[in-house]
């Protein structure tokens, strides 16, 4: 899925779940991008180790698992609101990636990919553009 899709869907999810403060929404958006730091394109260019991770593990591997989600958000556990908003960001990323045909290894190291609705989407296809449009519309209407 594209970066913009993850940002919009995560903000929409946070808004729907009743998170209104700008800080929690910002954290949701940032944490929605963290799993994609495993490839050296898009947001992954910011990560100096992304080339290594991509060469060693490939895209959608360890960073798209529940263990990673819990580990990476654990340092925010002091503030419960921020922790939950970070979790919403990462989990919304997982949910939107699970809509694609390939799916994600949610229970890594078990090598099985999980999908929802039988994985009907392809990254960058017109279906995804439809999701971007719908979520952008949703965010504008809710704001």
């Amino acid at each position, binding site marked *: 899925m594209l970066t913009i899709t993850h940002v919009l869907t995560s903000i929409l999810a946070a808004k729907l779940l009743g998170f209104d403060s700008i800080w929690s929404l910002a954290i949701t958006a940032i944490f929605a991008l963290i799993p994609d730091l495993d*490839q*050296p*394109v898009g947001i992954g260019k910011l990560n100096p180790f992304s*080339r*290594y991770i*991509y*060469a060693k593990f*490939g895209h959608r591997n360890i960073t798209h698992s529940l263990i990673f989600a819990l580990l990476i958000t654990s340092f925010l556990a002091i503030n419960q609101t921020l922790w939950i908003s970070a979790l919403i960001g990462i989990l919304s990323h997982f949910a939107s990636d*699970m809509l694609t045909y*390939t*799916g994600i*290894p949610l229970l890594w190291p078990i*090598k*099985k*990919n*999980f*999908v*929802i*609705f*039988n*994985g009907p989407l*392809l*990254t960058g296809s017109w279906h995804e553009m439809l999701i971007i449009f719908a979520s952008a519309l949703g965010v504008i209407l809710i704001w």
Partner: protein
Amino acid sequence: MVNRTNELELIKKSIEKRKSIILLGQKGIGKTYLLKSIELNFKACYIEHLTVKNILEKIAANLKVHSRISLRYLNIEELSELVMPILKKRNKVILLDNCESISKPVARLLEKLCEHSTIIAAAERKPWSFRFREELMLIPLDRNSSKELAVKLINLRDNFILDLIATKSLGNPGKICEICRDFSLAIDNFELDLLDKNSIIKFFLGIKPHFPTRINIFPIWLLFVIGFGLLIVKYFFYSESDWNTGYMIAAMGYTSLIIYRLINDKRRR
């Protein structure tokens, strides 16, 4: 065919600074291809079998060293006496392929060669006996580049086939070439029909690595069950029967999904 301009620029910089560099990456990623292109650009010396005599022989042949007898009959000392003085005068680029294991005598020779020339090596993993000053990890191609490469190889612009090739190859150029060659052969031998999607899927299912097992944790029918269940609960237990816009949109969505599923099922039959 593969665009490796960034890597080539990094290598050019290390050649200018006379730093030894090692290209790391899995099998088929394009290490040898990159070395061969450097060989053409810099008139470098390409060496595949890493023995002391072979390295000195190849460098001597590349430098066009004059000797009374054939280089093949000279021993290591004579060869180094011939090669080293010339190497001191000019910066030569030496390319070493398959550098996974370097023996100690070869490592000693490479240390001497490093003083006057630039060494560029390629290996799947780092050798333990010799330390290169820089490392460059070659990464697999992204999806679009994989598709572009496949288009060049099979002259087909079918997105379905290109997607399958990109997925199966995992961005490895060597693997893409292999799949495309097998694919073209299968078409030439009438084993594959491009109009029949099932035969194409069967062909790709046979290629390793196999697709990871997919588990559908939320089937689409569960959405209908939950949606209608919530509506029923709301109607009977909370006695709310007003049909507002939200319900209308949801009902339209469900109906369109059911129609879509029915059409798809008909097509499958």
